[in-house]
């Protein structure tokens, strides 16, 4: 039986609050709003996820569909994190961020500057340029970045409030292709690390947290699952499990077995 716990953590255990750019979050799961079959399912999923921060995109007004996305998100009690998805240059991303600030009265921006249509991988030089300009303009910048620890450090150095490295390409569900780099990014920066993109299922989210990430962002993995609400509960539990495991300190990996029962005191049972 799945019971979505709205107020407590999924595990019932205390999870430290996450501080990003002056904001305090109790949930370490960020949710993308794209890909849901309906606004009703999205609302139910947000509740199950426990997420307090959700991304939205900025697009041309469609007179034919006067949706109530903003109203639904307001009723859900979540904060908006507008993104610059679809931007391929620093100039477009900066302008989109400014438009998002006008539209949503928030200076928070999930900065995406894409460099390749097939992989949707970030364009590193344009990303860094845009991040620097937006920080100068007073934005709280959360950049979607590659799993390169050097670029992550440069983004933190110019004043980004967090870094959001990809595990694998957006929407691919391939999980974390280079766990080693994600762990290096954790060492390289002092700002929160939010694993973004590539999450396929709950174990990927747990791994991200075990590697030292402070939070996980999931979109397609939840919204395009056969049962988004159930997957949101799974992701929530996985993020908490990974966070707890990270804090608990895992045993080192060994090549050979280490007996967990003592050798001492073994009986002599005679010849076989």
């Amino acid at each position, binding site marked *: 039986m799945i019971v979505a716990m709205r107020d407590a953590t999924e595990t019932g255990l205390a999870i430290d609050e996450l501080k990003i750019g002056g904001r305090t979050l109790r949930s370490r799961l960020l949710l993308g709003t794209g890909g849901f079959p309906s606004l009703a399912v999205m609302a139910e999923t947000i509740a199950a996820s426990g997420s307090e921060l959700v991304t939205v995109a*900025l697009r041309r007004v469609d007179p034919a569909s006067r949706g109530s*996305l903003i109203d639904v998100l307001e009723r859900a009690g979540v904060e*908006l994190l507008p993104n610059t*998805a679809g931007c391929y240059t620093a100039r477009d991303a900066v302008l989109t961020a400014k*438009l998002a600030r*006008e*539209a949503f009265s928030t200076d928070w921006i999930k900065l995406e500057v894409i460099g390749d249509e097939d992989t949707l991988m970030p364009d590193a030089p344009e990303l860094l340029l845009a991040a620097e300009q937006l920080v100068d303009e007073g934005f709280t910048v959360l950049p979607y970045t590659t799993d390169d620890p050097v670029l992550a450090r440069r983004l933190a150095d110019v004043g980004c409030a967090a870094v959001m490295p990809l595990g694998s390409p957006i929407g691919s569900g391939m999980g974390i292709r280079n766990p080693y780099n994600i762990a290096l990014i954790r060492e390289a920066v002092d700002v929160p690390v939010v694993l973004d993109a590539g999450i396929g299922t709950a174990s990927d989210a747990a791994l991200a947290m075990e590697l030292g990430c402070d939070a996980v962002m999931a979109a397609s993995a939840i919204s395009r699952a056969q049962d988004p609400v159930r997957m949101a509960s799974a992701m929530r539990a996985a993020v908490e499990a990974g966070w707890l495991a990270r804090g608990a300190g895992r045993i080192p990996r060994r090549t050979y077995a280490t007996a967990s029962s003592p050798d001492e005191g073994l009986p002599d049972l005679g010849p076989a």
Partner: protein
Amino acid sequence: MIVLNGENSDVRAGETVAAVLARLDLSPAARGVAVAVDGEVVPRAEWESFALGEHARVEVLTAMQGG
């Protein structure tokens, strides 16, 4: 000719941004809406006064589900 959200429109030069929004059934108080003209943000406070020039490219944007 003024281009509104990528399409030629019958909006005329001299009309305000607020007038264009009204054509889209959007009030000046509409939440979650932003406007750019010729690649520059037009702040909400200027919607009533900002008059469009000849050949202006107007983008009227709002929240969509995404990433």
